[in-house]
């Protein structure tokens, strides 16, 4: 039974995650990025052609814009109308009310006294990532 539902739509889900990853990589960069830079910034085993496909798709959707750099295109994200709406939602979330069932935030359930413990656990997580010991 585990993961059954994951197998039914792996492709669609995966392509959505990839688009998000590419977009996040572009936002993380300070300047426009050529596809090779995007490929490096996204990481993983992503093929160059896959990155190209996603970039073209995102450009068609108007989420990113491009400019010619030498013989290649360099891409950067666009601030769209949607970001304004998203920001309004964020403000709503920050009002301290119990989070609505429909919005699932990443950071939740914090109190200031937790900081010390979180810092030591962060060090532990980083140590494991470096040594590659998992689970």
């Amino acid at each position, binding site marked *: 039974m585990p993961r059954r539902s994951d197998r039914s739509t792996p492709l669609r*889900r995966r392509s959505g995650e990839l688009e*998000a990853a590419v977009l996040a990589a572009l936002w993380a960069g300070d300047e426009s990025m050529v596809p090779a830079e995007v490929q490096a910034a996204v990481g993983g085993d992503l093929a160059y052609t896959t990155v190209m496909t996603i970039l073209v798709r995102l450009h068609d959707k108007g989420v990113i814009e491009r400019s010619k750099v030498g013989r290649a295109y360099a891409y950067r994200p666009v601030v769209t109308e949607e970001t304004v709406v998203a920001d309004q*939602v*964020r403000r709503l979330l920050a009002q301290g009310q119990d989070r609505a069932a*429909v919005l699932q935030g990443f*950071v939740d359930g914090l109190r*200031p006294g937790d900081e010390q413990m979180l810092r030591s656990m*962060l060090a532990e997580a980083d140590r494991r990532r470096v040594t590659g010991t998992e689970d």
Partner: protein
Amino acid sequence: MGHLVYLPFALTVAAVVVSRLATSRLPARAAAWSTAVTMVALAATTTLALAILASPLIARVPLVAHLGRWRPAAVALHSPIPACSSAVAVVALLLVCSRVGVEVQRLARQFRDAARTHDHLHAAPAPLVVIEDHTPVAYAVSRATSRSGRIVMSTGMIDLLDRDERHAVVAHETAHLHHRHDLFLAAADLAVAVNPLLRPARADLRYSLERWADEDAATSTSRPVVAAALAKAAVTAIGLVTTPGALHLHSHDMTRRVAALLADGPPAHRRLAWGLVGLAVVAAGAIALATHDTERFFEAVRRS
């Protein structure tokens, strides 16, 4: 009908205790499913129990007695349920009705807001919308009717994380959308409106849903990566908090989640899930028997 009819209330208290245990002793997915199913079942059975307890008093209302073809005096004389219990149950039933009404309206409004936000965000059909804000924020918005949705991330969050951690956050939010966690929470909200004793279990469910999304994200990255992403975002968020009330103060949820990711996989006390669901099954059985007894009682007073 004895005391069987009171059993669902006692089992609700037991379920709240077991669901707390489930958050740390079950894989998150199993904990979330068993908690949600049990909450809904116990909300339903406690409502039926109230209806059964209230029935002798309701049956004495002249119109009801006329339709049921029994004498109000006979019901009062032979009822196995103390009149004071019935009176309390009637009041409780009225409260439940009004609470559910309010909650349904609130949920409808919430889903409508979410749908509107989602549709706005949908205009640019990229799965990720980035907002320019230095606070580390990430959340997912969906329509109640679909699995797909939009993920929103702040530039603060993006700048804070490295590429693997960004991927972890996206995978975490995607898991919320893909597994319809919004519906789990809405069901739990309704269950709490019906039976307020279940409120602590709702917090446990929410924690389990976050853990579920964390573990899901770990399968496409790794557990230390998700742990690092969570810890970084949390530490930064704490640093930015100026008033203690600005963030949701649900005890140690964030630290617990990071600790769970750094620990070995969750101990698989699968039996606990069945124990939790078992409580709901027992409650349903008790109510079935009590309903049967109630029917027989009314048949008896009709003949008398």
